[in-house]
């Protein structure tokens, strides 16, 4: 399919068109950018760096019902994700889309997770290339990503100044481009070449990096290394780094019952940095301190995950570095891993 252009003065009408689906776009409240469902195109905020909360919350909601029940009745009513309908996530960053592609492997491994996978099927991802890296702590290029990366995306938009260049990447993307055809025009000649230049320039602006080669194999050998004590000393044990990580996918399952006897079993994000995460009913905790928890977080991303799924569970979005209250820096930890002996 031919590349198109979406003129900036037509973005609103295009978004209006998309509200016939469940449209998710970045929206700003105070200084915080969060992906949420929008009804009105004015709510969308596309001039953003990156969202505080990654768009994983759309396909993997923070709290999600698995099934409902009535106390005392044997019938369990399964949640039908289909009812949510076709969803379009508009304007997400390439790293966050790539994160979804990575997490797909976990949710389709062995047992298929029907909720997540169904929702992924229903969702079309319209990415927005990073002409300027959103933060100084971006390091996507170290992990096989790129500010203009297309992995996981269905459409890539590139900001060309007065318009967006629209490139459909998948069948789903082409279908959506079709839907929007009334608002699209042919892309000016030379746009694609210009976009390639912008991409190269953007990659050059990614300031931080890490050579990940050998880290997955090395991490298990550093099990008792003193570095874990050092890097976790300042850790507060909060959930910022994991909840805001686009690839973190751990969850808890809880039952909730109302006074009426109606109840649900739901899952909600959980964090390996919380002490209750691994706490046994007996009171024993196999990861009793922040040292073990930090070690597990890093090892899971950079060793366990690649061992099983052949890809590092980190996309280099930099959120955990930017938002950590005590400036724990995953790149610094990884550098120490590389240097450790």
């Amino acid at each position, binding site marked *: 399919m031919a590349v198109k252009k979406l003129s900036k003065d037509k973005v609103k009408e295009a978004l209006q068109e998309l509200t016939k689906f469940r449209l998710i776009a970045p929206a700003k409240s105070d200084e915080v950018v969060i992906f949420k469902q929008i009804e009105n195109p004015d709510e969308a905020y596309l001039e953003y760096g990156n969202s505080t909360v990654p768009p994983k919350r759309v396909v993997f909601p923070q709290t999600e019902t698995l099934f*409902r029940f009535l106390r005392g009745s044997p019938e369990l009513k399964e*949640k039908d994700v289909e*009812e949510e309908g076709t969803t379009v996530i508009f304007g997400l960053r390439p790293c966050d889309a790539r994160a979804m592609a990575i997490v797909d492997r976990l949710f389709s491994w062995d047992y298929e997770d029907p909720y997540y996978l169904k929702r992924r099927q229903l969702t079309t991802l319209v990415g927005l290339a990073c002409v300027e890296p959103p933060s100084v702590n971006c390091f996507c290029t170290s992990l096989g990503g790129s500010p203009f990366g297309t992995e996981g995306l269905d459409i890539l938009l590139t900001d060309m100044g007065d318009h967006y260049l629209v490139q459909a990447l998948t069948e789903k993307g082409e279908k959506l481009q079709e839907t929007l055809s009334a608002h699209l025009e042919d892309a000016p000649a030379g746009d694609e070449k210009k976009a390639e230049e912008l991409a190269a320039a953007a990659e050059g602006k990614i300031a931080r990096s890490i050579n990940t080669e050998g880290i997955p194999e090395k991490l298990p050998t550093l099990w008792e290394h003193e570095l874990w004590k050092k890097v976790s000393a300042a850790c507060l044990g909060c959930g910022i780094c994991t909840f805001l990580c686009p690839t973190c996918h751990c969850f808890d399952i809880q039952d909730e019952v*109302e006074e009426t006897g*109606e*109840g649900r079993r739901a899952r909600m994000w959980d964090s390996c940095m919380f002490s209750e995460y691994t706490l046994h009913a007996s009171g024993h905790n196999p990861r009793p301190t922040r040292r073990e928890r930090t070690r597990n977080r890093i090892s899971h991303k950079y060793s366990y995950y690649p061992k099983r799924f052949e890809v590092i569970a980190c996309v280099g979005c930099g959120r955990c570095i930017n938002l950590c209250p005590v400036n724990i820096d995953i790149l610094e930890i990884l550098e120490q891993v590389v240097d450790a002996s």
Partner: protein
Amino acid sequence: MAEKTDFEPNIVAFLCNWCSYAGADLAGTSRIHYPPNVRVIRVMCSGRVNPLFVMNALQQGADGVLISGCHPGDCHYMQGNYYARRRFNLMRNFLEYLGVEPERVRMSWVSASEGAKWKEVIEEVVNGVKAVGPMDMFKRRQLNW
């Protein structure tokens, strides 16, 4: 605010075992008629009422909460009601700050002999809550899918 309304509020009342519960009991045995909107939870002392009880009651469908204990100086445990007084003064102000009308969180001293006062207190609480309407700010919504 004598607005006529069909709204019948749910009031959860935490009553201390020694004074207010006995006072409410006296109202009953004396055939004193008071609004039937109150669900009584008997606790040993008003000092036993955790402010989180109030929060949870409002979350679970109470439109108003009443905490009632012995008059100052009369506490069966000497000082429980004094602690409760500090706690709920702060709690009430705080909930008001979030937008919960002060009519919804009330506290009273009702002794074992004050069956008539119990009636007055309940009437005032119920009328107060009626005036501000149903509590739906942070009430647990119907189960989400």
